[in-house]
C-alpha cells in the first residue's frame, strides 16, 4: 500500500511538473491526466473510498480530454524560459516533503505529499501564466490537488471542478477583453 501511495504521489508530481512545463494543449492534457491518475492512485492506496478516487481520476481524465479541444496545438514542452519552472518543480517537492515531514512513514502522509506538491506547483504556474489554456489546466490541477487532501467530499468536488474547468474555452479572446 505504501509503495502504491508513493508511486501515486511521484506520478502526480511528475504530472503536475509536466503541466507546468507545457504550453500547448497536448502537454497540458497529458500533465493533467497524469496528475489525476497519480492522485487517485495515492488516495486509493491511503484508504480513501475507491469510488471517490475513481471519480477523481475520471474527472481529471475528462478535464484533460476537454483541454485537448482548444488552445495552442502541439506539446509545447520545455519552451525557452521554462528553466525556472523546472527548478520550482524540484523545490516544491522538497517543500512538500518538509511540510509532510514525519507523516511520510504512512500511506496517508505520502498521499498528502503528492497532493501538496500538486497544489503548490499548480498554484505557482497559475500565478505566473498569462494565457488562458495553461491557466485553465493549472486551475484544474490545483482543484485536483486540493481535493486529494480531503476525504470523499473533497475528491468528488475536485472531480466536478476539473470537469467544469474543462468546459471553459481555452481559446484566447481577441482584444483587451481576454
Amino acid at each position: 500500500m505504501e509503495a502504491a501511495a508513493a508511486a501515486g504521489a511521484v506520478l502526480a508530481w511528475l504530472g503536475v511538473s509536466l503541466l507546468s512545463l507545457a504550453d500547448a494543449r497536448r502537454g497540458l492534457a497529458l500533465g493533467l491526466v497524469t496528475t489525476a491518475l497519480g492522485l487517485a492512485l495515492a488516495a486509493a492506496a491511503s484508504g480513501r473510498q475507491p469510488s471517490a478516487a475513481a471519480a477523481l481520476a475520471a474527472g481529471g481524465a475528462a478535464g484533460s480530454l476537454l483541454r485537448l479541444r482548444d488552445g495552442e496545438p502541439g506539446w509545447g514542452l520545455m519552451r525557452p524560459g521554462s528553466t525556472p519552472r523546472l527548478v520550482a518543480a524540484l523545490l516544491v517537492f522538497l517543500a512538500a516533503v518538509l511540510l509532510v515531514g514525519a507523516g511520510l512513514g504512512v500511506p496517508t502522509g505520502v498521499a498528502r505529499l503528492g497532493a501538496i506538491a500538486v497544489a503548490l506547483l499548480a498554484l505557482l504556474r497559475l500565478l505566473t501564466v498569462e494565457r488562458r489554456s495553461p491557466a485553465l489546466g493549472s486551475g484544474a490541477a490545483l482543484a485536483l490537488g486540493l481535493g486529494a487532501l480531503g476525504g470523499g467530499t473533497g475528491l468528488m468536488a475536485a472531480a466536478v471542478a476539473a470537469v467544469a474547468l474543462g468546459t471553459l474555452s481555452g481559446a484566447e479572446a481577441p482584444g483587451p477583453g481576454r
Partner: protein
Amino acid sequence: MTALRAWFRDPRPGWWLLLAGAAGAAMTLLCLLGRPPGTLLLPPPSRVLLAFSAPAVALMVWLAPRGDRLERLCAGLVGLGSQAVLASVPDLLAVAVLLVPVGFAVAARPGRRSLSARVRGPALAAALLGLGWALLRSPGPAWLGRLGALGVALGLVAVGGLVPYLQEVEDGEPAETSYLAWTGFLAPALALVLPFRLLQGHLLTPDEGMVVGAVLVGLGALNLAWGAVGAWRTASLAEAWRDSFLVDWGFALIGLGLFERDGLAAAYLAMLAVLGVRTPLALLARTAPAAGTSPRPLALVLVVLLAGAAPFSGFPVRLLVLRAATELAWPLAIPLLMAMALAAAHALRLARALGSPRGRDAIGLAVVLAVSLVLGLVPGILRGLGGI
C-alpha cells in the same frame, strides 16, 4: 407580465450562460432546502445573507441597460448559487476546491483584464484555505498547525481581495467581473461560515486560535487604516469605492478575529451591510451622474450613511466591534476609533460620486437607504434571525 416580457425581449445570451443561470438558481434552491441532507447545510446567518444578496442582484439587473438585463440576471443567479454553495458545504476543503471553478467562472466573463490575471486572487485564496485546512487537521509539530491556521486566515483575506491581496481595479470594468464580485458579494458568505466551521469542530488548539485571531485582527486593522485613508486620498474614484469596502471588511475581520459574541455579531452585521448597502451603492455609483452644484438632501444623507453614523447600518457595527475590542483589550479600540473618525472624511467624496440620482437610480437609492435604516435601527431582530 408585460414588464417581464419586456425584460425577456432582450437578445438571448450564450446558451451556456442560461444554463449556468438555471444551475445557479437550482443550487440556491437546493441549499435553501438543505438537499441532499448532510452534504448541503445552510446555517441561519447565511440564510439572512442570501436574503440580502437577492435584492443586490435584482438591483444589478434593474440598473443594467435593457440589452444586458437577461445576461446580468444569469450572472447574478450564478453568483447567488455560488454564494449558497460556498456557505452550505460543510467541508472547508471542498469549499476551497469549489472556489477554483467559481473563480474561473467569474474570471471567464468578458473584461478588460485577462482571465489569468483575474483568477489569481481566488486561486491563491483556494490554495491558502485548502492547504491551511489540511495542515490544521494533519498530525505533526505545533508550527505546522500554526502554519495551517495562518493559511486559513489568509485564505479568507485573499477571497475578499483585501489587503495584502488587493486586486487591480480598473475604471469602467463590469461589476460582475470587478472586485465587487468577490469583495462585495461572494466573500461575505465565506466570512460568515468560516468562524462557525472553525469553532464547531473545536479543531483549533489555543495556539492555532491565537494565530487565526491575531492575523484576522492585525489584517483587519490594516484594512481599516488602508481603507479609511485610501478612500479619502486615492486619485481614482473606483479605487476609492473599493477602499470603502475595506473599511467595512476591517471591522468584520477584527470582529471575527476577536472570537467573541459581540465581535461575531459585528462581523455579521458588517457583512450584511456590505451586501445590502455598500455593494448596491457601488453599483449605483457606476450609473448615477456626477453631483451638481446644489446637492439634494437625499445625496447629503448618503454622506451620513457612508460615514457609518446613526441611524444607518454602520452604527451598530461600530458599537459592537468597539465593545468586543474593549472587552478584550482597550488599546485595540484606538485604531478603530481613528478609522471611525476618518470615515467621515471619505464619505463626502463617495456621496458626491453618487451625485443626485433620478428615476430608477433614485428609487434604488431610496431602497438602499431603507435597508440601511433597518440594519441600523433594529440590528437585534437581524441578529435573532441569524441566531447570533
